[in-house]
C-alpha cells in the first residue's frame, strides 16, 4: 500500500479521535493533521499539510527531538516524549495562557513508496492539574501535622510544668494534713467520750481524712492521658491487678486467649478498682469471672462476681465522682481512664445475683492476635 492509499481512508477516521494525530514522511513533511490537533494548535489542516513540521515548529529540529524522530523513521522502536522532560511537542495554548501538557508517541509506518512517522499527542493537562492539586493538599496536610506536633510538644511541656507544680503543692498539703491528723488523733485520745468537743473533733477528723483521700486521688488523676495509649492484653492486665489485691478468699477466672484493647496505660487501675470493690463491698464474693464477647458493632468485656450485687438505686450514680462507701473515686477514675480511648463502662447486674460490669470497646480498638 502506498502512502497516499494509506492516508486517504484515515483522514475521516482520525478526525473523530480525542487525541492529536499528525503523520509526517521521511522529509518531515506533514501528510495528515487531524481536527483535534488543528483545534488545539490553532493551525488548520489546510495550513499544515505539505509543510515541513520542523519549519513550523523549529524546536523539533533540536538534536534531542530530531535524533529520536529520525531513529524512528530509520526503523527504530517507537519513541515517547513525556511532559516532564520535554516542551510540548506541538505547542497548544490554553485559553488561560498556559500550555497543554502532552504525552507524545512517535511510531514508524512502512509503505511501499516510503516511510511515515505517526505522531500521536495525548492531552494530559487535567492529569497534571490533578497531581498539582493532590500535591498541594498533601503539603497542606503535612504542614498541619507539623503544626499540630509543635502544639502537642508545647502542651506536653506546659503539662509537665503544671504537674511539677501540683506535685509540690500536693506534697506540702499532705505534710500539713498529716500533722493535722496526728494532732487531732492525739487530741481525740485526750478527750472524754460523749462530749461536744469530741463530736466536733470527729467531724474535723473525718473532713481531714476526706481531704487526704482527695489530694491522694489527684495524684492518680494527674497521670490520666499523660502517656500515649497502647495495646494491652486484658488477661495479663487483670491477673496483675488481681495479684495486687492479695485476696485469699476470691478466685479470678479469666478467659484464655489473646484479647488486646487499645487503652490508656492506667487500664490496670480499672481492674484493680473493680476487684477492690468486689473485695470490700461485694457481699461475700468468692469468684470473679472475666469473659470477652465479640459483636458486630463492638466488643464487650464482662467482669462478673457472685456477691450480693449492686442496689438498683445505686446503679445510676455508681460512676459519679465522690459517690460510694469509700473515697467514691475509684469507679469515677475507671470511667475516665477508659473514656480516653472511647471505651465505656456500665453496671448491668441484678441485686442479689452479683455485680456485672460491662466494658464496651469499639472493634477498631480490639486485637485478637499478638503483634510485635
Amino acid at each position, binding site marked *: 500500500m502506498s502512502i497516499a492509499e494509506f492516508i486517504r481512508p484515515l483522514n475521516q477516521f482520525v478526525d473523530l479521535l480525542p487525541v492529536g494525530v499528525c503523520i509526517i514522511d521521511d522529509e518531515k513533511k506533514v501528510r495528515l493533521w487531524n481536527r483535534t490537533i488543528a483545534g488545539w494548535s490553532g493551525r488548520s489542516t489546510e495550513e499544515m499539510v505539505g509543510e515541513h513540521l520542523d519549519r513550523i515548529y523549529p524546536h523539533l529540529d533540536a538534536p534531542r527531538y530530531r*535524533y529520536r524522530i529520525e531513529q524512528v523513521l530509520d526503523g527504530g522502536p*517507537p519513541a515517547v516524549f513525556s511532559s516532564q*522532560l*520535554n516542551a510540548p511537542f506541538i505547542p497548544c495554548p490554553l485559553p488561560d495562557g498556559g500550555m497543554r501538557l502532552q504525552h507524545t508517541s512517535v511510531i514508524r509506518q512502512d509503505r511501499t513508496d516510503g516511510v511515515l512517522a505517526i505522531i500521536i499527542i495525548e492531552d494530559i493537562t487535567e492529569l497534571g492539574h490533578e497531581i498539582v492539586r493532590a500535591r498541594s493538599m498533601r503539603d497542606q496536610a503535612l504542614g498541619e501535622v507539623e503544626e499540630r506536633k509543635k502544639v502537642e510538644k508545647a502542651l506536653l511541656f506546659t503539662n509537665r510544668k503544671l504537674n511539677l507544680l501540683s506535685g509540690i503543692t500536693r506534697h506540702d498539703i499532705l505534710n500539713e494534713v498529716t500533722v493535722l491528723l496526728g494532732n487531732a488523733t492525739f487530741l481525740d485520745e485526750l478527750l472524754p467520750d460523749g462530749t461536744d468537743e469530741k463530736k466536733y473533733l470527729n467531724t474535723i477528723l473525718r473532713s481531714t481524712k476526706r481531704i487526704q483521700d482527695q489530694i491522694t486521688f489527684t495524684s492518680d488523676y494527674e497521670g490520666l492521658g499523660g502517656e500515649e495509649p497502647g495495646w494491652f492484653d486484658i488477661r495479663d492486665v487483670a491477673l496483675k491487678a488481681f495479684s495486687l489485691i492479695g485476696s485469699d478468699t476470691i478466685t479470678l477466672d479469666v478467659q484464655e486467649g489473646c484479647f488486646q484493647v487499645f487503652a490508656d496505660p492506667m487500664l490496670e487501675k480499672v481492674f484493680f478498682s473493680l476487684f477492690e470493690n468486689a473485695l470490700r463491698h461485694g457481699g461475700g464474693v468468692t469468684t470473679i469471672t472475666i469473659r470477652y464477647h465479640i459483636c458486630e458493632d463492638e466488643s464487650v468485656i464482662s467482669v462478673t462476681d457472685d456477691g450480693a450485687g449492686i442496689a438498683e438505686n445505686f446503679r445510676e450514680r455508681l460512676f459519679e465522682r465522690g459517690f460510694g462507701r469509700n473515697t467514691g473515686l475509684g469507679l469515677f477514675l475507671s470511667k475516665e481512664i477508659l473514656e480516653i480511648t472511647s471505651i465505656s463502662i456500665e453496671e448491668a447486674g441484678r441485686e442479689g445475683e452479683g455485680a456485672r460490669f460491662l466494658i464496651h470497646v469499639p472493634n477498631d480498638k480490639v486485637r485478637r492476635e499478638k503483634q510485635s
Partner: protein
Amino acid sequence: MDLNTDELDALRELVNIGVGKAAGILSEMTGSRIELSIPVIHLIRGDQYTEIEAVLGEEQYAAVRLGFEGAFTGTAFSIFPANSADILIAAITGDEPDHSGSLAHFHSIHAETLMEVGNILINGVMGSITNILGTRLIYTLPSYSEEPVARLIQEAGSDQRENIIVAQTRMFIHNLNIEGKILLIMGGRSLDILVRKIQEARD
C-alpha cells in the same frame, strides 16, 4: 544455549554503544551530564528462577516494556529498582525523593517520565543491535508497569522465556549512582539468530 566469552563480549559492545547513545540523549534532555557505565552482561535460562532472583532480587521494579518481532523475536525491558527510580525521578524533575524504598508514591506523571527514560535506553540498545546487524524489527508501543522481575518474565510469551540477557548498567547524574538494567528476553532460536548475526557482522 550458552554464549562463549567472545559472544558475550560482542553483545556487551553492542549494548554499550546503545547505552552510550542513550546517555547522550538523556544528558541533552536534562541539561545535566549523564554517564552510563559499561554494562555487565549475564545470560540466564528462563527456567532458572533461583538464579534470576539471585541476580535481580525479588523486589518491585519500575519497568518499561517493548516487544519486538522480526529476524529475532522477544521482549525488551528497561527496569529500575524502587530506590533508583525514586532518585532518578527526583534528579530529573526536581521533585523531593521519597526514600521509602517503594514505588507506592509514584503517580502517572512520574510513570510517564520513567517510561521516556526507559524508552530512550531500550531504543538506544535495540537501535544499536539492529543497525549493526542490518536487520529491521517490528515493535510494540512501550508500556510501563511496576512488578517483580519474575512476574515480568512470566508475562513474556512462553516461547520467549528460554533465555534472558541481563545487561546491568549504572547511571550517574549529579554524582548520584542510579542502578538500571536492560533485559532482553528471547527464545532459543531467536538468540541463535542474534548470535549468528553478531558473528557475521564481526566477520
